[in-house]
């Protein structure tokens, strides 16, 4: 099986490192973006198998990034999984409405995180 490439859009350095570490331990290829704009560019250029998108990003927030990814022909087929803390009512719906295929709640459970990611990859593969 080809090594899956995952784009992680996350502004918090520690979380970025944490997620990257967990995914790389499971033999995923990880590309990193530290803000929304960078995320859009990387998604287009890297064509990852999955995008893990933090919602609370500086400048352009995760919803906007997701919408733009889904609007662009180049990136609209890439599944997006929001990784966020559902602080407020409606966040969950807003995430799905913005075009995300799913969500993983923060803080991530290191024991289950990779399994969750693999689950979203499977859905994609089933398509």
């Amino acid at each position, binding site marked *: 099986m080809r090594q899956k490439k995952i784009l992680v859009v996350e502004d918090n350095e520690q979380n970025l490192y944490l997620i990257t*570490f967990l995914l790389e331990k499971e033999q995923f290829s990880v590309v990193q973006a530290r803000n929304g704009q960078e995320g859009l560019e990387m998604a287009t250029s890297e064509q990852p198998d999955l995008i893990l998108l933090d919602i609370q990003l500086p400048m352009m927030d995760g919803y906007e990034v997701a919408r733009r990814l889904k609007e662009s022909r180049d990136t609209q087929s890439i599944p997006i999984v929001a990784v966020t803390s559902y602080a407020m009512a409606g966040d969950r719906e807003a995430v799905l409405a913005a075009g995300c295929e799913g969500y993983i709640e923060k803080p991530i459970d*290191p024991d289950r995180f990779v399994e969750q990611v693999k689950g979203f990859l499977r859905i994609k593969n089933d398509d």
Partner: protein
Amino acid sequence: MDITPAKDREAFFHFTLPYLTIPHVIVGRRDGPHFKSEKDLKGKTVALERGYYNIPYFRKNYPEVTIKEYNSTSEALGAVASGEADAYAGNRAVATYLIERELIPNLRLMGRMDKPPVVLTVGVRKDWPVLAKLLDRALGAITRDEVRGIHRKWLEAMEDVTTSLDLTSEERAWLRDHPVLRLGYDPDWPPVEYVDKEGRFVGMSADFMRRLNTIIGIDIKPTKPQSWQTTLQEMKKGSVDILFSATRTPQRESFLLFSAPYLRFPMVIVTDQVAPYIGDMKDLQGKKVAVVKGYASHDILKNKHPDLNLLLVDDVTEGLNAVVRKKAYAFIGSLAAISHVLGREGISGVKVSGETPYSYELSVAVPKDQPVLAGIIQKALNAINEEDRNEIFKRWISVTYERKFDYQLLWKILLAVILIFSAVFYWNRRLSREINLRRKIEGELVEAKEAAESANRVKSAFLASMSHELRTPLNSIIGFTGIILNELAGPLNLEQKKQLKMVKGSSHHLLNLINDVLDISKIEAGEVEITKEAFSMPQAVDQVVESLRPLAEQKGLSLYAKIDPDVDLVVSDERRVCQILINLANNAIKFTEKGGVRIACQDRETNIEVRVTDTGIGIRDEDKGKLFKPFQQLDMGTARRYEGTGLGLSVCRRILDLLGGRIWVESQLGEGSTFAFTLPLKSEETNETKEDPGC
């Protein structure tokens, strides 16, 4: 026809037998000398009727008396009144009748004449002896009773006086020595006695005074007005001789002699309009009660109700005003005086709230050292016949009652008008105040609403921010702890593993805390949105059981689910249902040391009932009510406190409220607990199920 037989008259008349005997009296001026008998008339001018028998009588017996002749009794009396003559002597009945009819107030009946009483017979012309006999027979046919009836009709008033005022020689002597008596009275006790606007002494006592003056032939004069209290002191000192309207009290009996009471007035309780009915003197206990100093009411209250808080006032007016001005709760006084003063002073805002068991019993009082006077007075009082007495009462009391009635009606109408006006005024004011208040409140509400909305936005933003800010470091802590514990970053020794597990546990506890606080805040802010979707209940329960199995196994507890085959799809908020289930199962595991936890799920037709039963420590009855309130982790009475926020059950209950279900506990201390909840079963079938229950 009425003619007194006399020797010279016998020349012309036959006289019938006498049909009436009337004494002759001496009438003089009130301000003139007192003529006790005809002997006192020596050297005086006496008015007599021309042709009357008295003229030759005086000429013969008292040549020293100057006789002035008048055509009628009326003229003769007028002469005395005007000072032309010093006295009149004649038929008492006629004199009394004329004095009263013609209102000659300055005349007074004085002594009786020594000459034998007038004997009236019918005179008949001497040449008609047969007629005289016939008349005699006719007069004889008039019965004694009929004669008495005629007497009563025409002559009784005076008849009674002289016949019943049977004074002893001692009494006569006393009266001679005391021609003038000083009358003490209350200047403000209408209608009994008071000083009117013109400064005159009026009232019932004044009338009695005049009547007694006439009857006794004495001069009772009112003293100058002074307060009742002072009057009583003057009485003690001997500068007042008589009181007409005194009520017998033990205090007063020490220095006064009282006649039998001649009038009773109830003592009533007056309060302001709002006071309730006072049915008992006990109702006044501890209240300030105004009473006129030195009045019988004062003595009575002091003796019989020493517990009352008395406010002593100088007169009725002051007492009533004390009530109006709220200086006293009540005033106790005579109904007659109160109604009179209310009318006179135009005092309003008070009412008679009750009656005391006491009354003013009016008697005439004289100093204790004057028993003779007391005897005379009692005789004189007895001599005033019932009709006269009633007339005096009627005159004053009826004035009072009439006035009272008039005033009361007036007051009632006025009061009603005032009440209506003040009610309207009050309502208007209240309404305008209310409108103002409402406007103000509305303004405040708008402000408050804006503030609240703004605060809410701030709160929401704060919660979102806090959630993010707290979760981000927690993400790192939990994440790296997990990575190291899973030895993804390299092998650990046992001690390191044990310590890192503690970090992991604490960080999860912190995460739960944050989640629960956020949940409660969101529920209270009405920000929890319930998304109802059909999901598989058995699947959801299984998920929960599987997620908690490691925890149960760690403690060596069994954990299993028993789901009825009927149970399938439920339309509810799956994530919230799972949250509740996890919470309950987690608690069950936490509080159970031996045995296990069982989750049962049953279809109850209208709802699904989920029961989480443990074999743990159980819950005391008195603690059950506290369970579902926030921050109420129960003190188990052991050294151990359990981990947890104390918010879990409260969150569960609130969520179930939103889901239309309910939650309760069945437990006995030491025998485990069952937490059960229901979810309403919607009849609407939906095929949409979710692949991942998300628990």
